[in-house]
């Protein structure tokens, strides 16, 4: 299985993602944002970081990068595209997933482990996972998911919410919402479920000596689903 991680100026989780993908069996290539063409890939990942210094709005400049036209075409033809953290911000700015990510409600950069609940397994990312609640890491200043009421209705009607912030028992109450996101939303799909954007970093949870292995479960499952 082949994957590609796009490096934008200011990306800083590209290497972590590269290591995670290779560890679980992908043959990953790192692709520079100024390239026009994607290598042949089964999965394209937009990594976390601070592309273009978060100028204007997070992800807004990167969403206009040369490579993004190929990424958008790849997604529109059904290819799997996953955006993590800043990658999620780039996905919303490029219009591949609905909504937008605002400044965290309490204006602080949040860096901690959180629990998330998978809402919908009818998609290539979460299909066949044998649990619903995962512990992932978040590190962001603009992760406060927002969308209009009309968009929210559409998102919910189409089962596009990928994950919700919750506690370790899976309760998705407001008090377990770290950043003010609408309805505790931590990740979202496009309508077709081949594009996934999420704030948490599964690539930071692939080693027990770091902070956990829930990311390992996610990646192992993902490559098996794609095979």
């Amino acid at each position, binding site marked *: 299985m082949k994957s590609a991680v796009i490096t934008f100026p200011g990306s800083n989780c590209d290497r972590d993602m590269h290591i995670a993908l290779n560890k679980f069996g992908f043959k990953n290539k790192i692709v520079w944002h100024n390239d026009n063409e994607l290598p042949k890939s089964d999965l394209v990942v937009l990594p976390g970081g601070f592309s273009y210094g978060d100028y*204007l*709005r997070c992800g*807004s400049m990167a969403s*206009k990068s040369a490579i993004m036209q190929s990424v958008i075409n790849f997604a529109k033809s059904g290819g799997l595209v996953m955006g993590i953290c800043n990658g999620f911000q780039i996905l919303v*700015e490029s219009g591949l997933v609905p*909504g*937008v990510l*605002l*400044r*965290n*409600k*309490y*204006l602080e950069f949040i860096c901690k482990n959180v629990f998330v609940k998978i809402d919908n397994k009818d998609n290539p990312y979460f299909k066949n996972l044998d649990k619903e609640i995962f512990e992932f890491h978040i590190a962001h200043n603009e992760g406060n998911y*927002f*969308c*209009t009421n009309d*968009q929210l209705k559409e998102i919910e009607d189409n089962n596009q919410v990928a994950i919700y912030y919750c506690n370790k028992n899976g309760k998705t109450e407001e008090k377990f919402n770290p950043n*003010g996101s609408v309805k505790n939303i931590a990740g979202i799909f496009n309508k077709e479920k081949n594009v996934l954007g999420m704030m948490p970093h599964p690539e930071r949870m692939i080693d027990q000596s770091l902070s956990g292995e829930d990311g390992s479960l996610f990646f192992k499952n993902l490559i098996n689903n794609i095979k």
Partner: protein
Amino acid sequence: MKVSAVITLKKEVLDPQGKVIHQTLDGMGFKGVNEVRQGKYFEIDVNENDPKKAQKIVEDMCNKLLANLVIENYKIIEIQ
């Protein structure tokens, strides 16, 4: 021509920075402030002498990059 555009968050979008500025103003003794909303200001010098055309160019920029219309509105406030 120089075109000035202001971008503000839509009414229904929470503006935590505006809120904090409001609280700080209040603490400094500026009483009677009803609300503070923070926005962005752009001054764009375009190579165009017709004000209507210059406005159109900057509106196009606002629609495509400068504003995110899910959460923001823009307004051209000056053309000179």
